[in-house]
Protein backbone atom coordinates (compact mmCIF):
# COMPACT_ATOMS: atom_id res chain seq x y z
CA UNK A 1 0.00 0.00 0.00
CA UNK A 2 2.34 2.78 1.29
CA UNK A 3 2.58 5.77 -1.08
CA UNK A 4 0.70 3.96 -3.84
CA UNK A 5 -2.44 4.06 -1.73
CA UNK A 6 -4.63 4.25 -4.80
CA UNK A 7 -3.42 0.95 -6.19
CA UNK A 8 -6.17 -1.67 -6.06
CA UNK A 9 -5.68 -4.61 -3.69
CA UNK A 10 -6.03 -8.16 -5.03
CA UNK A 11 -8.92 -10.54 -4.31
CA UNK A 12 -6.56 -12.49 -2.05
CA UNK A 13 -5.85 -9.43 0.10
CA UNK A 14 -9.52 -8.45 0.04
CA UNK A 15 -10.45 -11.88 1.42
CA UNK A 16 -7.85 -11.49 4.17
CA UNK A 17 -9.39 -8.18 5.16
CA UNK A 18 -12.88 -9.72 5.18
CA UNK A 19 -11.65 -12.45 7.48
CA UNK A 20 -9.76 -9.97 9.64
CA UNK A 21 -12.93 -7.91 10.06
CA UNK A 22 -14.52 -10.93 11.79
CA UNK A 23 -11.82 -10.70 14.46
CA UNK A 24 -11.25 -6.98 14.94
CA UNK A 25 -12.28 -3.58 13.64
CA UNK A 26 -10.40 -2.76 10.46
CA UNK A 27 -8.24 0.36 10.41
CA UNK A 28 -9.47 3.24 8.29
CA UNK A 29 -6.88 2.43 5.63
CA UNK A 30 -7.98 -1.20 5.53
CA UNK A 31 -11.64 -0.23 5.33
CA UNK A 32 -11.00 2.08 2.40
CA UNK A 33 -8.93 -0.52 0.55
CA UNK A 34 -11.60 -3.20 1.04
CA UNK A 35 -14.47 -0.90 0.05
CA UNK A 36 -12.65 0.23 -3.08
CA UNK A 37 -12.06 -3.37 -4.09
CA UNK A 38 -15.61 -4.51 -3.37
CA UNK A 39 -17.00 -1.59 -5.37
CA UNK A 40 -15.52 -3.03 -8.56
CA UNK A 41 -15.35 -6.77 -7.81
CA UNK A 42 -18.61 -8.68 -7.93
CA UNK A 43 -17.15 -12.06 -7.02
CA UNK A 44 -15.60 -10.64 -3.83
CA UNK A 45 -18.97 -9.13 -2.94
CA UNK A 46 -20.43 -12.62 -3.32
CA UNK A 47 -17.64 -14.01 -1.19
CA UNK A 48 -18.24 -11.51 1.59
CA UNK A 49 -22.01 -12.07 1.66
CA UNK A 50 -21.52 -15.84 1.78
CA UNK A 51 -18.91 -15.75 4.55
CA UNK A 52 -21.21 -13.54 6.62
CA UNK A 53 -24.23 -15.76 5.93
CA UNK A 54 -22.34 -18.91 6.93
CA UNK A 55 -21.09 -17.21 10.07
CA UNK A 56 -24.69 -16.43 11.03
CA UNK A 57 -25.87 -19.97 10.35
CA UNK A 58 -23.11 -21.92 12.08
CA UNK A 59 -24.26 -21.59 15.71
CA UNK A 60 -27.52 -23.37 14.77
CA UNK A 61 -25.83 -26.21 13.03
CA UNK A 62 -26.05 -29.01 15.61
CA UNK A 63 -29.65 -28.14 16.52
CA UNK A 64 -30.58 -27.98 12.85
CA UNK A 65 -28.88 -31.25 12.03
CA UNK A 66 -30.67 -32.99 14.87
CA UNK A 67 -34.09 -32.02 13.60
CA UNK A 68 -33.65 -34.95 11.22
CA UNK A 69 -33.23 -38.53 12.39
CA UNK A 70 -29.50 -39.32 12.49
CA UNK A 71 -28.07 -42.01 10.24
CA UNK A 72 -26.90 -45.08 12.22
CA UNK A 73 -23.22 -44.15 11.99
CA UNK A 74 -23.94 -40.83 13.70
CA UNK A 75 -26.01 -42.28 16.56
CA UNK A 76 -24.60 -43.29 19.91
CA UNK A 77 -24.08 -47.05 19.45
CA UNK A 78 -26.17 -49.35 21.63
CA UNK A 79 -23.07 -51.00 23.08
CA UNK A 80 -21.77 -47.59 24.17
CA UNK A 81 -25.14 -46.73 25.72
CA UNK A 82 -25.04 -49.94 27.76
CA UNK A 83 -21.47 -49.33 28.84
CA UNK A 84 -22.24 -45.77 29.90
CA UNK A 85 -25.27 -46.90 31.91
CA UNK A 86 -23.23 -49.60 33.61
CA UNK A 87 -20.55 -47.09 34.60
CA UNK A 88 -23.15 -44.61 35.78
CA UNK A 89 -24.78 -47.28 37.92
CA UNK A 90 -21.41 -48.16 39.44
CA UNK A 91 -20.98 -44.49 40.31
CA UNK A 92 -24.35 -44.28 42.13
CA UNK A 93 -23.73 -47.31 44.33
Amino acid at each position, binding site marked *: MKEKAQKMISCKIAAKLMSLSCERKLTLKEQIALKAHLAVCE*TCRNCQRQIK*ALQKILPDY*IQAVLRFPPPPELSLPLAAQKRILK*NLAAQTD
Partner: protein
Amino acid sequence: MTRTKKQMEKSSPEQWVAQHGHYLYRFALARLRQPELAENAVQETFLAALKARHRFAGRSSQRTWLTGILKHKIYDHFRQHAREIDVSDLVDKDSQAVDSFYDYTGRPHHPPADWLPNPREISKSKEFWEVLERCLQKLPVHTAHAFMMREIDKMSTQQICKNLDVTATNLWVMLHRARLQLRECMEKNWFEESR
Protein backbone atom coordinates in the same frame (compact mmCIF):
# COMPACT_ATOMS: atom_id res chain seq x y z
CA MET B 1 -36.57 -24.81 43.66
CA THR B 2 -37.22 -24.35 39.99
CA ARG B 3 -39.03 -26.92 37.99
CA THR B 4 -36.04 -27.87 35.83
CA LYS B 5 -33.91 -28.38 38.89
CA LYS B 6 -36.49 -30.71 40.38
CA GLN B 7 -36.67 -32.57 37.11
CA MET B 8 -32.91 -32.89 37.02
CA GLU B 9 -32.72 -34.38 40.48
CA LYS B 10 -35.63 -36.68 39.88
CA SER B 11 -34.65 -37.88 36.43
CA SER B 12 -32.57 -41.01 36.31
CA PRO B 13 -29.28 -41.47 34.45
CA GLU B 14 -31.20 -43.86 32.16
CA GLN B 15 -33.42 -40.98 31.15
CA TRP B 16 -30.45 -38.70 30.53
CA VAL B 17 -28.82 -41.21 28.24
CA ALA B 18 -32.07 -41.84 26.38
CA GLN B 19 -32.92 -38.16 26.01
CA HIS B 20 -29.55 -36.59 25.37
CA GLY B 21 -27.19 -39.42 24.41
CA HIS B 22 -27.56 -39.11 20.64
CA TYR B 23 -27.42 -35.33 20.75
CA LEU B 24 -24.24 -35.23 22.83
CA TYR B 25 -22.66 -37.95 20.73
CA ARG B 26 -23.26 -36.08 17.50
CA PHE B 27 -21.94 -32.91 19.06
CA ALA B 28 -18.79 -34.70 20.26
CA LEU B 29 -18.32 -36.53 16.97
CA ALA B 30 -18.39 -33.28 15.00
CA ARG B 31 -15.43 -32.07 17.05
CA LEU B 32 -13.45 -35.19 17.88
CA ARG B 33 -14.29 -37.19 14.71
CA GLN B 34 -13.33 -40.61 16.10
CA PRO B 35 -16.26 -42.66 17.47
CA GLU B 36 -14.25 -44.00 20.45
CA LEU B 37 -13.18 -40.49 21.49
CA ALA B 38 -16.74 -39.21 21.14
CA GLU B 39 -18.18 -42.12 23.16
CA ASN B 40 -15.66 -41.51 25.93
CA ALA B 41 -16.37 -37.79 26.02
CA VAL B 42 -20.12 -38.52 26.32
CA GLN B 43 -19.51 -41.02 29.09
CA GLU B 44 -17.26 -38.62 31.02
CA THR B 45 -19.91 -35.94 30.62
CA PHE B 46 -22.61 -38.10 32.18
CA LEU B 47 -20.30 -39.18 35.00
CA ALA B 48 -19.33 -35.59 35.76
CA ALA B 49 -22.98 -34.57 35.60
CA LEU B 50 -23.94 -37.27 38.05
CA LYS B 51 -21.32 -36.10 40.52
CA ALA B 52 -22.27 -32.45 40.16
CA ARG B 53 -26.02 -33.06 40.03
CA HIS B 54 -26.69 -31.10 43.22
CA ARG B 55 -24.94 -28.08 41.72
CA PHE B 56 -27.26 -27.91 38.71
CA ALA B 57 -28.88 -24.51 39.23
CA GLY B 58 -31.83 -25.06 36.93
CA ARG B 59 -31.17 -21.78 35.17
CA SER B 60 -30.74 -23.56 31.86
CA SER B 61 -32.20 -26.73 30.38
CA GLN B 62 -30.67 -30.10 31.18
CA ARG B 63 -29.37 -30.34 27.65
CA THR B 64 -27.64 -26.96 27.76
CA TRP B 65 -26.07 -27.89 31.07
CA LEU B 66 -24.85 -31.24 29.76
CA THR B 67 -23.57 -29.66 26.54
CA GLY B 68 -21.57 -27.18 28.63
CA ILE B 69 -19.88 -30.04 30.47
CA LEU B 70 -19.23 -31.88 27.21
CA LYS B 71 -17.61 -28.82 25.65
CA HIS B 72 -15.11 -28.71 28.49
CA LYS B 73 -14.33 -32.38 28.07
CA ILE B 74 -13.65 -31.71 24.39
CA TYR B 75 -11.48 -28.66 25.14
CA ASP B 76 -9.53 -30.76 27.66
CA HIS B 77 -8.90 -33.40 25.04
CA PHE B 78 -7.49 -30.91 22.55
CA ARG B 79 -5.48 -29.12 25.22
CA GLN B 80 -3.88 -32.39 26.30
CA HIS B 81 -2.99 -33.22 22.72
CA ALA B 82 -1.90 -29.70 21.78
CA ARG B 83 1.56 -30.48 23.13
CA GLU B 84 1.89 -33.47 20.83
CA ILE B 85 1.26 -31.58 17.61
CA ASP B 86 3.60 -29.32 15.75
CA VAL B 87 1.67 -26.08 15.49
CA SER B 88 3.99 -24.43 12.98
CA ASP B 89 3.40 -27.37 10.66
CA LEU B 90 -0.36 -26.94 10.96
CA VAL B 91 -0.12 -23.23 10.30
CA ASP B 92 2.11 -23.78 7.27
CA LYS B 93 -0.44 -26.17 5.84
CA ASP B 94 -3.30 -23.75 6.48
CA SER B 95 -1.35 -20.94 4.91
CA GLN B 96 -0.53 -23.08 1.86
CA ALA B 97 -4.19 -23.98 1.60
CA VAL B 98 -5.11 -20.29 1.54
CA ASP B 99 -2.52 -19.65 -1.18
CA SER B 100 -3.85 -22.53 -3.24
CA PHE B 101 -7.18 -20.73 -3.68
CA TYR B 102 -5.46 -18.00 -5.74
CA ASP B 103 -3.20 -17.66 -8.77
CA TYR B 104 0.04 -15.66 -8.57
CA THR B 105 -1.75 -12.37 -9.19
CA GLY B 106 -4.05 -12.97 -6.22
CA ARG B 107 -7.11 -13.84 -8.30
CA PRO B 108 -9.20 -16.80 -7.12
CA HIS B 109 -9.06 -19.94 -9.28
CA HIS B 110 -12.81 -20.34 -8.77
CA PRO B 111 -14.37 -16.89 -8.44
CA PRO B 112 -17.29 -17.05 -5.96
CA ALA B 113 -20.63 -17.42 -7.76
CA ASP B 114 -23.78 -15.50 -6.93
CA TRP B 115 -25.67 -17.52 -4.29
CA LEU B 116 -26.83 -17.13 -0.73
CA PRO B 117 -28.46 -19.63 1.63
CA ASN B 118 -32.06 -18.62 2.29
CA PRO B 119 -32.69 -19.02 6.06
CA ARG B 120 -36.29 -20.17 5.57
CA GLU B 121 -35.40 -22.71 2.91
CA ILE B 122 -32.38 -24.23 4.64
CA SER B 123 -34.13 -24.70 7.98
CA LYS B 124 -36.21 -27.39 6.26
CA SER B 125 -33.42 -28.76 4.12
CA LYS B 126 -31.82 -31.90 5.50
CA GLU B 127 -29.39 -31.82 2.62
CA PHE B 128 -28.03 -28.37 3.38
CA TRP B 129 -27.03 -29.32 6.93
CA GLU B 130 -25.54 -32.61 5.83
CA VAL B 131 -23.40 -30.84 3.26
CA LEU B 132 -22.34 -28.29 5.88
CA GLU B 133 -21.40 -31.10 8.25
CA ARG B 134 -19.36 -32.85 5.55
CA CYS B 135 -17.61 -29.60 4.60
CA LEU B 136 -16.62 -29.00 8.24
CA GLN B 137 -15.28 -32.57 8.39
CA LYS B 138 -13.03 -31.86 5.41
CA LEU B 139 -11.08 -29.27 7.37
CA PRO B 140 -8.05 -30.51 9.33
CA VAL B 141 -9.25 -31.48 12.80
CA HIS B 142 -7.45 -28.70 14.70
CA THR B 143 -8.43 -26.04 12.19
CA ALA B 144 -12.06 -27.16 12.45
CA HIS B 145 -11.84 -27.18 16.24
CA ALA B 146 -10.46 -23.62 16.33
CA PHE B 147 -13.13 -22.49 13.88
CA MET B 148 -15.98 -24.10 15.85
CA MET B 149 -14.76 -22.63 19.14
CA ARG B 150 -14.83 -19.24 17.46
CA GLU B 151 -18.04 -19.40 15.43
CA ILE B 152 -20.19 -21.87 17.38
CA ASP B 153 -19.00 -21.51 20.97
CA LYS B 154 -18.34 -17.78 20.44
CA MET B 155 -15.11 -17.98 22.41
CA SER B 156 -12.73 -15.01 22.40
CA THR B 157 -9.59 -15.30 20.29
CA GLN B 158 -7.42 -14.92 23.42
CA GLN B 159 -9.14 -17.89 25.04
CA ILE B 160 -8.77 -20.03 21.92
CA CYS B 161 -5.07 -19.17 21.64
CA LYS B 162 -4.57 -20.22 25.25
CA ASN B 163 -6.51 -23.42 24.71
CA LEU B 164 -4.59 -24.46 21.62
CA ASP B 165 -1.29 -22.92 22.65
CA VAL B 166 -0.97 -20.90 19.43
CA THR B 167 -0.26 -17.23 18.74
CA ALA B 168 -2.94 -14.81 17.56
CA THR B 169 -1.37 -14.78 14.09
CA ASN B 170 -1.37 -18.58 13.94
CA LEU B 171 -5.01 -18.68 14.96
CA TRP B 172 -5.92 -16.06 12.42
CA VAL B 173 -4.44 -18.15 9.58
CA MET B 174 -6.41 -21.18 10.75
CA LEU B 175 -9.68 -19.25 10.90
CA HIS B 176 -9.10 -17.61 7.53
CA ARG B 177 -8.44 -20.94 5.86
CA ALA B 178 -11.55 -22.42 7.50
CA ARG B 179 -13.76 -19.59 6.23
CA LEU B 180 -12.44 -19.76 2.66
CA GLN B 181 -12.56 -23.52 2.43
CA LEU B 182 -16.00 -23.83 3.96
CA ARG B 183 -17.38 -21.21 1.58
CA GLU B 184 -15.90 -22.90 -1.45
CA CYS B 185 -17.00 -26.36 -0.31
CA MET B 186 -20.58 -25.17 0.18
CA GLU B 187 -20.58 -23.55 -3.25
CA LYS B 188 -19.37 -26.73 -4.94
CA ASN B 189 -21.41 -29.26 -3.00
CA TRP B 190 -24.59 -27.45 -2.17
CA PHE B 191 -25.17 -24.51 -4.49
CA GLU B 192 -23.85 -26.10 -7.69
CA GLU B 193 -25.43 -29.47 -6.91
CA SER B 194 -28.87 -28.05 -6.16
CA ARG B 195 -28.93 -25.84 -9.22
